[in-house]
């Protein structure tokens, strides 16, 4: 097993580099000039200034040389300087990532915690009102556009009922908790500051529900289908013939056999939540990676885009590795 993990990690590094190369080539070949995107019209109209700028950011070098410089920096843990923010890209990412990680993790837990039980219930009580409800909810979650759902939720629970706080991670006048992780829930809990914890938690509810909606739908459907399949297996009938309780038959005999596709989907969903929170973060003014990505892309900020690509692809690869490893835990037939 350790050898397997080592092999997979090595190939993950290679894959991440390959992804960065692809992104590098695409962003270098698209029409559009980051310099022009940054400069005002007057500065951009002066060819000398433009040339100086291009030289300053190394945009006058041949493509392969630019990629070489990027790799060189990468070897030293340096992702370069963002053209837009003029700060090291790594610093930017470290600043924005925790907000996204916190949001995505809560949304993921929500999706799992709601989707799996709902899927199981729908399969066990197939073709009853429980099943219909679960299917209606998952259809709604999958098909409702994120921005629409976000506005509706804000309008109802913040604007009308006043049950939820507004956008942002904390109350604007509150001090964000100091802490090592940048995850407000964790930092405030570590500091014992429960007032801040409640504030952060309350701010998380709406964006997490919005972000999780589609994933809840997918996980419910997948769990339902996998459970129906497992419940139809011979060994489930054998378990019934043994006179075991319904709960034992469903949870001990059927569920473990239904989890493989759910875990596969869950892994992908978590990676997607991390990378795909752009819409939600924008509507809820969430200072996370999604908004950073959006701004960098709009500004054709090459170093930032490259850095984000690396981080996102590394996340995908890690999550995939974890998913593959979990197969062995779930199914003894996969173990070597």
């Amino acid at each position, binding site marked *: 097993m350790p050898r397997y993990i080592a092999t997979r990690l090595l190939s993950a590094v290679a894959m991440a580099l390959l992804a960065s190369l692809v992104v590098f080539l695409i962003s270098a070949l698209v029409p559009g000039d980051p310099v022009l995107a940054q400069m005002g019209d007057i500065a951009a109209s002066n060819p000398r200034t433009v040339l100086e700028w291009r030289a300053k950011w190394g945009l006058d070098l041949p493509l392969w040389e630019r990629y070489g410089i990027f790799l060189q920096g990468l070897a030293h843990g340096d992702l370069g300087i963002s053209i837009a923010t003029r700060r090291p890209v790594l610093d930017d990412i470290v600043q924005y990532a925790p907000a996204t990680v916190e949001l995505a993790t809560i949304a993921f837990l929500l999706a799992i915690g709601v989707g799996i039980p709902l899927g199981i219930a729908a399969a066990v009580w197939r073709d009853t009102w429980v099943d219909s409800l679960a299917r209606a909810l998952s259809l709604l979650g999958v098909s409702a556009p994120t921005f629409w759902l976000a506005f509706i939720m804000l309008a109802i629970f913040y604007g009308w009922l006043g049950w939820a706080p507004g956008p942002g991670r904390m109350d604007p006048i509150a001090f964000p908790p100091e802490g090592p992780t940048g995850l407000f829930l964790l930092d405030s809990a570590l500091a014992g500051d429960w007032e801040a914890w409640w504030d952060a938690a309350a701010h998380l509810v709406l964006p997490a529900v919005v972000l999780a909606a589609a994933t809840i739908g997918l996980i419910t459907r997948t769990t339902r289908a996998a459970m129906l399949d497992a419940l139809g297996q011979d060994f489930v009938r*054998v378990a019934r*013939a043994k006179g*075991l309780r319904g709960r034992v038959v469903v949870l001990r005999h059927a569920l473990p056999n239904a989890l493989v596709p759910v875990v596969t989907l869950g892994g992908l969903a978590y990676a997607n939540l991390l990378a795909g929170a752009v819409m939600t973060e924008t509507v809820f003014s969430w200072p996370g990676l999604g908004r950073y990505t959006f701004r960098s892309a709009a500004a054709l900020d090459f170093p930032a885009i490259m850095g984000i690509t690396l981080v996102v692809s590394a996340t995908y690869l890690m999550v995939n590795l974890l998913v593959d490893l979990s197969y062995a835990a779930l199914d003894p037939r996969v173990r070597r």
Partner: protein
Amino acid sequence: MRKPGTVPVLEVEDLQTVFLTDAGAVRAVDGVSFTVGPGETLGIVGESGSGKSVTALSLMRLLEEPARIIGGSVRFQGRDVLAMSGEELRGWRGDRAAMVFQDPMTGLNPVIRILRQVTEHMVSHGRQTPAKAKLRAVDLLRRMGVAAPERAAASFPHQFSGGMRQRVMLAIGVANDPLLLIADEPTTALDVTIQAQILDLMRGLNQEFGTAIVLISHDLGVIGTVCRRVAVMYAGEIVEEAETAAVLTDPRHPYAWALVNAVPRLDSPAGTRLVSIEGGPPSALDPPPGCRFVARCPFRISRCGAEHPPLMEVAPGRRARCWVTMDGSPLPPPPVAAEAAFRTPAQEERPLLEGKDLVKHFPLGRIGLFGPVPVVHAVNGVDLRLRRGEALGIVGESGCGKSTLARLVTRLQAPTSGTLEFDGQDITNFSAAEMRPLRPRMGMVFQDPYASLNPRMTVGDALAEPLLAHGRARTRAEARGRVLDLMATVGLKPEWAQRFPHEFSGGQRQRVSIARSLALEPDLVVADEPVSALDVNVQAQVLNLMLDLRERLGLSYLFIAHDLAVVRAFCDRVAVMYLGRIVEEGPAHELFARPLHPYTVALTSAVPEPGRERVILAGEPPSTLSLPTGCAFRARCPIAQPVCAEVRPPLSDVGPGRRAACHFPGTFHA
């Protein structure tokens, strides 16, 4: 029969189970009644769709939607099973009454260790504490013949063969000392020698613990080895109930008569026409008013179409649902077997197919990065000669390499080494393009007729395809005449050419496959288990058809099967394979009458025919990953000597036309 005064374990009275479909209620079980006393054994036999499995599931109330019990009663020691609450039912199932299912490969939960699967219901029914249940589980596994039971208990199901898993299933079944064990086709998925072991185990359970057994099977022979009494089911009804031995020798219902005579026996002469009844069971949605068997019955009288016969006592202790035999008269014996002309193919002629020292190894994935590459030794040096017009049977248990051999001789796969000649041409290393002109001369018939027919192609198109592909016809219209000829040859109606495969029954689909294999007028037909997926009656139809075609078209057959009696009925010569080698070869009638290799002796004796001396072979074939030294069979051989471990016996002549690979041929008898 039952001692007076004892309460029967199981009393079934007028049981009716239906499937609620959009078209109406399908009457799967329609008024079934029987009684099983303490320690009694009852078999239920019938073809697929006769309602035997639904009966078993109804007894345990394990039916799933849309099946529903709509009438009758099931009493277990006087308790009304159909009236039990969910809680009572759970307490009874798996405790006093247990059930074993057909497929041991899917009946065990793949993610739960064997130990827990054997102990969980002992604990949940309060029969054992967890600690005691563990000890008992290991003890049960040992008694069921599981090798190294402690280690087995800690393993997962996928680490075991089908036979071992069925032993585990039996251990699960009897864990709480049930009074009744219901077994639904428990050996159908297993090889004959393993089947004999499991049936022996079931007999032992009945004799040692007095467990009453209801055994459901499509095979009267299997039932005969375990059960004293049998109920024959047809179209949801019991049509005959009697002592098993009586039904086997003197069936009193025409359907039972057809079942008994449709099965080839090891002692029936070569080329025997089997009794086959045409048609299928009537619609269970709307059964005919008279006898349900009337449309297929060779003995019907006018009363049969008008009046539904009740189950009547036709002799002491036996009942049948038939107007013809109600007066106690027996049915006539089957028409005297029209013995096929036994041809002795010309010796001097060069063989149609000749393989020398054929070997096929399959390398598997490397273990680890630099580990060894494991190799499956599927075929390990086979010499093969098939003369023109001859039918050569290849028999052996699963994993013996017989299907691989079929793919080698048709060059669907290339041999690892050895040589192969077809009609004098060395085709050992022919490329796919070089094989192409030879393809029309080799027809193939596979086991699963449904899987080998394209579901989106009409049968007419499927039959026209080889004609178009090999230039025998330029257009579909041109091919049409030949397609209709082919369909007529295999007994299919011409108007069925527009139908799709799913519109046919299993037997008809196999006729289509046979027609397809004949489309290009082959010299050689390679048939890999062509009848093993079929009901006995359909099997008889297909075997009769293949015999006819052999005589009419002078075909040569390589016939691969695990069922010895089928091979015996069809083939001139038989080769027995074990672990990728031929261990014995000879003329079919001599080989089965006087087997020389101990493995052949065990195989023939394992065939579940009543009155046969049984040699129960211990163990299972060794792994094909590493071949044993010396004789591959020695670990299971009852007469193995030290020399068997050192020297591999070659396949050598042991009399006219007979060869055996054994150091002591002919010294072991059943």
